[in-house]
């Protein structure tokens, strides 16, 4: 296990390094001068040059890259060109919205997806299975931002149960969570449809295994065999897909946050793009990459902990 974890850690660090280089390289192609953007179109060339020098923008790219990574390690992400404030707190405050949102959506997707998937596998080929699978096809086809708009239409505009958008802040946790419920549903339902499909096929595969027959022969009830034997054995592919899907969930959050006017990471990124605030975009994309790569790293380790065969095959 230790060897496996070691390999995974090395791969994780290497992937992060490559990711940071790619993000940095892409951002270098960006047309326009950050110093010019900060000072506006009327600034003199001397002023622009002076600011470039002060920000270290006139240094060669490799040195700027090392400075960026070095700063990030100390939590110093630099200054936002548009807001003139440190990027760290800017991103932290947006994460205070986006992280709980992503978590709520993922929990929702896991609960609905696992339950519906196990149910469909149990009823394989019967009406219940067909209905669940039909819904999951529709769930995958519906764009999450359209579902978000429909939810606003029904629950905010027509029924007036929840606010149509905005975020009151965490000082009032009840209202903050209320503001995140509709966005989390919009994000979670699509993911739930995918988790349902994966769960169904993984559980069907496990149901055909010999140990299931043994469990039933030993007198374990159908239900207990399903939940205690089939599901745990089906968990590895389900976890893997959920890890991969998390990247899509985060990308979806960028759009859904926009529907609900939530001050999350997605909105921060979009605003920074329109402001040409490259340093914020660079750090934001890197953070998203870190979350996605990190989560897949955790999923790998979790899968190896659940299924010892994976450890053996890696060594």
């Amino acid at each position, binding site marked *: 296990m230790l060897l496996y974890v070691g390999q995974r850690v090395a791969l994780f660090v290497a992937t992060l390094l490559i990711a940071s280089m790619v993000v940095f390289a892409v951002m270098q192609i960006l047309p326009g001068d950050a110093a010019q953007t900060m000072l506006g179109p009327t600034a003199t060339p001397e002023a622009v040059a002076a600011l470039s020098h002060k920000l270290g923008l006139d240094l060669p790219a490799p040195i700027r890259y090392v400075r960026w990574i070095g700063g990030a390690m100390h939590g110093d992400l630099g200054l936002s060109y548009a807001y003139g404030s440190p990027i760290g707190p800017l991103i932290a405050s947006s994460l205070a919205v986006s992280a709980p949102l992503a978590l709520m959506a993922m929990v929702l997707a896991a609960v609905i997806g696992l339950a519906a998937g196990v149910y469909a596998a149990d009823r394989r080929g019967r009406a219940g299975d067909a209905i669940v699978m039909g819904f999951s096809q529709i769930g995958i*086809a519906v*764009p999450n931002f*359209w579902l978000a708009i429909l939810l606003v239409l029904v629950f905010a505009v027509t029924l007036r149960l929840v606010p149509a958008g905005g975020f009151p802040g965490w000082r009032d946790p009840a209202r903050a969570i209320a503001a995140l419920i509709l966005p989390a549903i919009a994000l979670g339902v699509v993911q739930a449809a995918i988790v349902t499909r994966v769960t169904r096929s993984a559980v069907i595969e496990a149901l055909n295994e010999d140990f299931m027959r043994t469990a039933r022969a030993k007198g374990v009830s159908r239900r207990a065999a399903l939940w205690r034997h089939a599901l745990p054995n089906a968990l590895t592919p389900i976890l893997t897909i959920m890890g991969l899907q998390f990247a899509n969930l985060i990308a979806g959050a960028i759009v859904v946050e926009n529907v609900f006017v939530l001050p999350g990471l997605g909105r921060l990124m979009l605003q920074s793009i329109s402001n040409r605030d490259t340093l914020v975009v660079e750090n934001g*994309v890197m953070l998203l990459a870190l979350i996605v790569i990190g989560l897949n790293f955790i999923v790998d380790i979790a899968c190896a902990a659940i299924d010892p065969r994976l450890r053996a095959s890696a060594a």
Partner: protein
Amino acid sequence: MTLSARFRPRGGLSLWLGATLVAVLIAAAVLSIIWTPYPPTAIDIPHKLAPPSHAHWFGTDNLGRDVASQILAGSRVSILVGVIAVGIGLAFGIVLGLIAAFSKGLVEDGLMKLSDFMFAFPALLLAIMLTSTFGPGVVNAIIAIGVYNVPIIAKLTRATANGVLSREYALAARAAGRGPIAIAVDHVLPNIAPALIVQATIQFAIAILAEAALSYLGLGAQPPQTSWGKMLADAQNVLYNAPRLALYPGIAIALSVLGLNLLGDGLRDALDPKLKARS
């Protein structure tokens, strides 16, 4: 296999429902090139937010534009983005996948590691980065979605091509002195085509969703171009006055994506019965 057995409709309901929906989508796009009830971008303020009527089937939007005409014109953008983005994915993905399958060793490992890495970036994130670099617009959205398709196709090509290359007929062709390109064209591509067609259909659906999301955010289609995603963004501004405007483009997107996914499922069952047993 007798002729009648080969042409028996397989794939069942998914295939036919999917094929019908996709046919409607293509027909709408073709029709919109030669005819729409009104010019899709013609502004008619006196008749803004008109309810559905004989003159305007789906009513008009906040600028008096005919919604039915916009839906028809929007299908063109969706198809265009899907075709080119999947085309980019297939063109580069198949070549890279074949190179990986034929070369083995370091080149194969390197290419596959690169693909794994690119998997971590969802289409939308990549598109946002690219549009932030090169500016918003349909072309950049297409490139971004196309680039996202490359590693997916490359991985699939490599995996399926490796299966073909280990078969006797491929080994025999190699023993007979045929070069890698000849083997790829004569033996590998025809055998991996079904898997690629199925995957291309699914990537097409993802491309339509990604384009809609980008255009909704204002990073895709730019005015005066019409796109379903942009229509949804416009509809959201008048959600209180004309909620129905948020329905039509969403239904159009969902039906297109549903059609493509069903077609993909149906094709997989029809082209490769072995896969059916597994899923």
